[in-house]
C-alpha cells in the first residue's frame, strides 16, 4: 500500500449500513466493487441487469468474466507504481471498454474507477455505464459525416485539422492520417486561416459568426499541387477543447465551368446581337446608294418622258418610281431603327416642349393638309436624347394624324409626374383606334394592320418608338378601342432623378 494514498474510513461489509446499500442499489449505473486480486466482492441491481447474471453468480467471480479486457490491467500495478497510483490517474476519467453479458453478447461501456481502502485491503469501485446508445449515436454522426457529399474538415483555433471525412480525403488526394494534425493552410492556402484568426477587436467566434451560412469562394490545393475552386461554409462548435470550426467544402469546378460557359454564351449572344445591329446598319446604308440611283433615274425617266411614250410606259414608270420610293422609306426607317439600337445613349436635360415643337414643325405639311389640332399643356424638362425624343413625338403624333377618321384629327399631349421622379407622357387622339388583340403586334417590326391603299407606312414607326422608349428606361403602352381613338404612353426621367 502506498503511503500517499489518503487514509479512508474502512468499510465493514459485514455490518454494512442499510442506507448505503439502498443508495448503491438506486444508482442508475451498474456498480461493482473489486478486490486486489480482481474478484468481485460487491455489486448492485443494475450490474445484475446489465450483465444478465444473478448476484450470487457474480460474487467472488473474476471481473475478467464480465469485462474481458482493460479493467484488470488497470488494477495491477506495473513494476514502478502501485495499483492505487495507477488508479488515481484514472479517477474521474471515463474509460471506454467492452462489457460481456452472461449470454456472451458484448456491449460498450464506460467505467469510472475509484479506490477504496478497506480492512480487506484496497478495493476498487467501478461505476459502469452502458454506452450503447451513445456509441450508436456517435456512429450515426460518423456515418453522416462520412456520407456527406461535401468534404468536411474540423479545424481547431490553431488552424490544425482535427477531423475530416472520406470526401475530404478524396477531394484533396490525401490519406486521412496525412491530414490529421496538419495545418489547414496546406489544403486551403488562402483565405481560410484569415477567417479563423480573430483580428484585434473581435474573437474568432465573432469573426466566424459573420461568415456563418455564407458560402465563401476560395481555392483548394490537392496533394499533387493542383488547385480547384471551392466554396466553404463555416460553422463554429464550442467544445471543451475550445472553439472548433467545421468547414463544409464543396468542389465547385463544375459550377465554375458552367458559369464561365454561361458567361461565354452571354458574351457570344451580345456579340452576335451587336453584329446583327451592325449588319442591319451597314446593309441599309449600303443599299441606300444603289437604290438612290434606281429611284432618281426612274423619276428622271418619268419627268422627261411622261406622256411621250405610250400609256403602258407611263404606268410602268409610275410603279417603278413608287416601289423605289417605298423601298427608300423602308431603308431609312431601318437605318433609324438600327441607329437607335447602336447609338451610345447620352441623356441630357431636354425641354420636352421644344422637342414636341420640333416634331410638329417636321409634321407641318401633314398637320396643315389634315387640318389637325395638336394641343398640349406646358411640358416639363426631362433627361433624354433630344433627337430621339423629337422622333418619338413625331412618330406618335404623326400616327395620330395618319390614322384619322373622317373628322379632323385632334391630338393631345399631356405629361404628369409619377413615382421615381419620372414623367408619364400620354399622346391621345380621336383616330380610328386599335382592337385590343393587336396591342402587342403593333410594336413589332414590319407589322401593319392596314392595306397600303388605306394607309401608307413601313411598319417600323412604332418599333422605333418602342426602341426609343426602351433606351430611355421605359416601355411604351397603348390604350385604345376601335373607333374611340388611342392613347400611347411612355415615361421619361425627370431632371432631378438619376437617368
Amino acid at each position, binding site marked *: 500500500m502506498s503511503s500517499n494514498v489518503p487514509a479512508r474510513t474502512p468499510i465493514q461489509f459485514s455490518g454494512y449500513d442499510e442506507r448505503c446499500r439502498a443508495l448503491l442499489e438506486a444508482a442508475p449505473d451498474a456498480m461493482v466493487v473489486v478486490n486486489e486480486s480482481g474478484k468481485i466482492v460487491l455489486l448492485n441491481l443494475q450490474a445484475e441487469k446489465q450483465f444478465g447474471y444473478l448476484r450470487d453468480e457474480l460474487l467472488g467471480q473474476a471481473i475478467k468474466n464480465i469485462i474481458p479486457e482493460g479493467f484488470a490491467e488497470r488494477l495491477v500495478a506495473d513494476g514502478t507504481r502501485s495499483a492505487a497510483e495507477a488508479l488515481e490517474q484514472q479517477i474521474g476519467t471515463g474509460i471506454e471498454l467492452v462489457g460481456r453479458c452472461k449470454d456472451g453478447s458484448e456491449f460498450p461501456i464506460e467505467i469510472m474507477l475509484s479506490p477504496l481502502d478497506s480492512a480487506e485491503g484496497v478495493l476498487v469501485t467501478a461505476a459502469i455505464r452502458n454506452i450503447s446508445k451513445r456509441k450508436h449515436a456517435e456512429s450515426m454522426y460518423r456515418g453522416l459525416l462520412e456520407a456527406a457529399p461535401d468534404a468536411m474538415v474540423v479545424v481547431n483555433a490553431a488552424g490544425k485539422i482535427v477531423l475530416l471525412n472520406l470526401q475530404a480525403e478524396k477531394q484533396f488526394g490525401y490519406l486521412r492520417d496525412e491530414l490529421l494534425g496538419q495545418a489547414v493552410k496546406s489544403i486551403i492556402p488562402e483565405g481560410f486561416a484569415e477567417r479563423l484568426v480573430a483580428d484585434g477587436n473581435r474573437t474568432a467566434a465573432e469573426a466566424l459568426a459573420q461568415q456563418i451560412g455564407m458560402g465563401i469562394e476560395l481555392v483548394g490545393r490537392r496533394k499533387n499541387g493542383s488547385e480547384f475552386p471551392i466554396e466553404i461554409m463555416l460553422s463554429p462548435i464550442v467544445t471543451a477543447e475550445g472553439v472548433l470550426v467545421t468547414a463544409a467544402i464543396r468542389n465547385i469546378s463544375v459550377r465554375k465551368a458552367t458559369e464561365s460557359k454561361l458567361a461565354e454564351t452571354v458574351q457570344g449572344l451580345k456579340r452576335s446581337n451587336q453584329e446583327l445591329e451592325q449588319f442591319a446598319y451597314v446593309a441599309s446604308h449600303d443599299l*441606300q*446608294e444603289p437604290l438612290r*440611283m434606281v429611284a432618281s433615274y426612274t423619276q428622271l425617266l418619268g419627268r422627261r418622258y411622261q406622256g411621250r411614250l405610250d400609256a403602258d410606259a407611263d404606268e410602268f414608270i409610275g410603279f417603278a418610281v413608287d416601289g423605289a420610293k417605298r423601298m427608300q422609306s423602308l431603308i431609312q426607317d431601318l437605318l433609324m431603327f438600327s441607329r437607335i439600337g447602336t447609338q451610345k445613349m447620352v441623356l441630357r436635360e431636354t425641354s420636352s416642349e421644344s422637342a414636341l415643337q420640333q416634331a410638329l414643325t417636321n409634321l407641318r405639311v401633314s398637320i396643315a393638309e389634315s387640318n389637325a389640332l395638336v394641343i398640349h399643356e406646358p411640358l416639363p424638362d426631362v433627361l433624354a436624347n433630344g433627337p430621339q425624343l423629337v422622333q418619338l413625338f413625331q412618330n406618335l403624333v404623326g400616327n395620330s394624324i395618319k390614322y384619322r377618321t373622317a373628322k379632323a384629327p385632334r391630338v393631345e399631349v399631356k405629361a404628369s409626374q409619377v413615382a421615381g421622379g419620372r414623367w408619364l407622357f400620354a399622346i391621345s387622339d380621336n383616330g380610328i383606334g386599335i382592337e385590343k388583340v393587336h396591342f402587342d403586334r403593333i410594336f413589332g417590326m414590319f407589322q401593319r394592320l392596314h392595306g397600303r391603299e388605306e394607309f401608307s407606312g413601313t411598319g417600323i414607326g412604332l418599333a422605333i418608338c418602342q426602341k426609343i422608349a426602351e433606351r430611355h428606361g421605359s416601355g411604351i403602352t397603348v390604350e385604345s378601342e376601335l373607333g374611340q381613338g388611342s392613347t400611347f404612353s411612355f415615361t421619361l426621367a425627370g431632371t432631378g432623378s438619376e437617368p
Partner: protein
Amino acid sequence: MKFPGKDGVAIELLLVEDSPGDVRLTREAFQEANKNIQLHVVSDGTEAIAFLRHENGYAHVPRPDFILLDLNLPKMDGREVLRIIKTDEHLKTIPTIILTTSVAEADIVKSYELQANCFLSKPIQLDEFDVLVRSINDFWLKRVKLPQQAKNLDGKIP
C-alpha cells in the same frame, strides 16, 4: 476684265465624284440650273490633284472656279484631296464644297477642320437634290464673289 458667269463667260466647275450615276445626276441638275456652267469631272483623288496642278494630260485644262468634292473616293480619299488643296498656296483660294452621302458628325467636323468651304449631304430624293443644286447655283455661283486674281494669269499656275 471678264467675270465668270457674267458676259457669257463659263464658270469652270470641277466635280470629283466616282459614281457615274451621280455624275450624270449632277450634270443634269446643273444644266437645269445654269447653262453657263462648264462641268469638268474626275473620278478619283489622284486625278483631282493632277487636274488642279495641270499634270498628266491636264496641261491645258482651266483652273476651276469652284470644286465639288465627294469624301469617299478611290486611290486618294476626298479628305486627303481637301487637305492638299487647302494647304497649297495656289489652290486654297478655290471654294471647295464637300458633297457626300455621309451624314456622320465625324466627317462634318473633319471636313471643316480641313477648311472645307461648306459641307452638303446628298439628299436621297431626286426633287430635293434638284433643290440643293439650285441653291448651290444661287448662292455660290451667283451671290458669292469669287477671287479673280489667279484667273488673270490666263488660267496658268504662276
